[in-house]
């Protein structure tokens, strides 16, 4: 079997374009997903069961159905319902952020609940309000503990963006598949994609490691 470097070079500009879109999709979904995840995570720990119920439902639905199914539903159903036409990139960002938000919500909830009760009691007895306690005392400590699981989630999200090739979002995997089906090859396109994804996740984990070290107090 001969490994055809020439077709990788031929497709290099497309793979590069795809990589940039993959990065764009992942970064925006990470930001939106984290923001939504924080809100939903806080929503889930509201003591009032009725108020917390919608947040429970959200996590159950988005964590309990496959991402691929969500992508199809959002691409062919939700986005055209609102705009009248499909948009693979928009659908991709929406699906990835909504899905990630469900997992991130759980990470936030676990992080917040892992902080010792004494911290809350202490700051409340100093006269802080509930919100102040949350923002100045609990969340900063919780956030540090959340970095490793959040890092996991970000890496999963980056890799899951490859699923968007099914709705023809021209990201990395889409071009890999295009290359594969033009030349009927498997090694060249998919190994190339695998290396690029590995490279991207390595950068991401490096950044997260740095962040973790920066926030270390002891």
């Amino acid at each position: 079997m001969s490994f055809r470097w020439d077709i990788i070079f031929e497709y290099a500009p497309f793979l590069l374009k795809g990589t940039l879109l993959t990065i764009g999709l992942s970064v925006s979904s990470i930001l939106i997903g984290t923001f939504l995840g924080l809100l939903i995570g806080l929503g889930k720990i509201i003591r009032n069961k009725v108020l917390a119920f919608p947040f429970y439902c959200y996590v159950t639905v988005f964590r309990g159905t496959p991402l691929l199914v969500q992508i199809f539903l959002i691409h062919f159903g939700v986005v055209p319902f609102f705009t009248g036409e499909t948009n693979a990139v928009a659908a991709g960002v929406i699906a990835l952020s909504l899905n990630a938000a469900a997992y991130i919500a759980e990470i936030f909830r676990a992080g917040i609940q892992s902080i010792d009760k004494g911290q809350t009691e202490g700051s409340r007895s100093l006269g802080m309000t509930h919100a102040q306690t949350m923002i100045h005392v609990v969340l900063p400590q919780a956030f540090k503990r959340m970095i490793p699981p959040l890092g996991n989630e970000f890496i999963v999200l980056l890799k899951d963006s490859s699923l968007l090739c099914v709705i023809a979002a021209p990201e990395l995997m889409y071009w890999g598949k295009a290359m594969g089906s033009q030349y009927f090859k498997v090694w060249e396109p998919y190994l190339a994609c695998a290396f690029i994804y590995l490279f991207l996740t390595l950068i991401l984990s490096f950044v997260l490691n740095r962040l973790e070290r920066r926030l270390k107090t002891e």
Partner: protein
Amino acid sequence: MKKVSFLMFAMIASLLLVMTGCGKDKEVSTTGKESKEEGSDGKTLRIVTDANYAPFEFLEGDKIVGFDVDFIKAVAKEAGYDVKLESVGWDPIFVEIESKRADVAISAITVNDERRQTYDFSVPYFLSTNKILVPEKSDIKSGNELKGKVIAVQTGTTGQEAVEKLIGKNHKDIKKFENNNLAIQELLQGGAAAVVADNTVVEEYVKNNPDQKLKVVEDSKSFNEEFYGLMFPKGSELKSEFDKAVNAIYENGKYAEIYKEWFGTDPDIETLKAQQ
């Protein structure tokens, strides 16, 4: 300590459960996808297809049916072989055949020079041409008017090739999907102005979904006639046997019978034979 060992036990037990579960799943799904034909006592051939291409090959429940399926069964019977048909997906077909893991592929595969370099093909068994599927009120009347419009195709098909010939390879206006169903879905939801695919597929779709308000545009200038062939690994000995068998069912009327059953018209056997 007791707790730990119990945990270990539970983990191993669940792992085993998952593993056996996987094994069973696989068995079920393969038997579900394959349809084995008993009858002649010849060798059983592994035939691969992509059962996602009505009316040629598609799934009815867990059974693969379609024109290609009836055709290959008739041809294989004529040649004295049993058929084990398996749906593996479009791109994997080419990998399976190239690596000789499968004996024959039938999946409405168009014979062209590019593919001939890597594979052997039987004599043509079907005449087809790419056509354009557009909404009823669309003003696209020819292939040239596709320029500047977003076009959805199935990746790796001659529909994609034909469009790329018109507007440029890997052009940003071409959206490539796993299969034609998704491409047509994209058209219906307004994400594309047209779908280019084999005439039988788009015509069948329009016929079966009159409420979607789609129409088929023909352009024999932009899109050439194409012929489907059975695909074999390069140098396969089956080719000559199957060529003979295909001609035999042309002669004995079996081909016309199957054709009429699926498409409701008589086949143009003369054009097919002229290609041999």
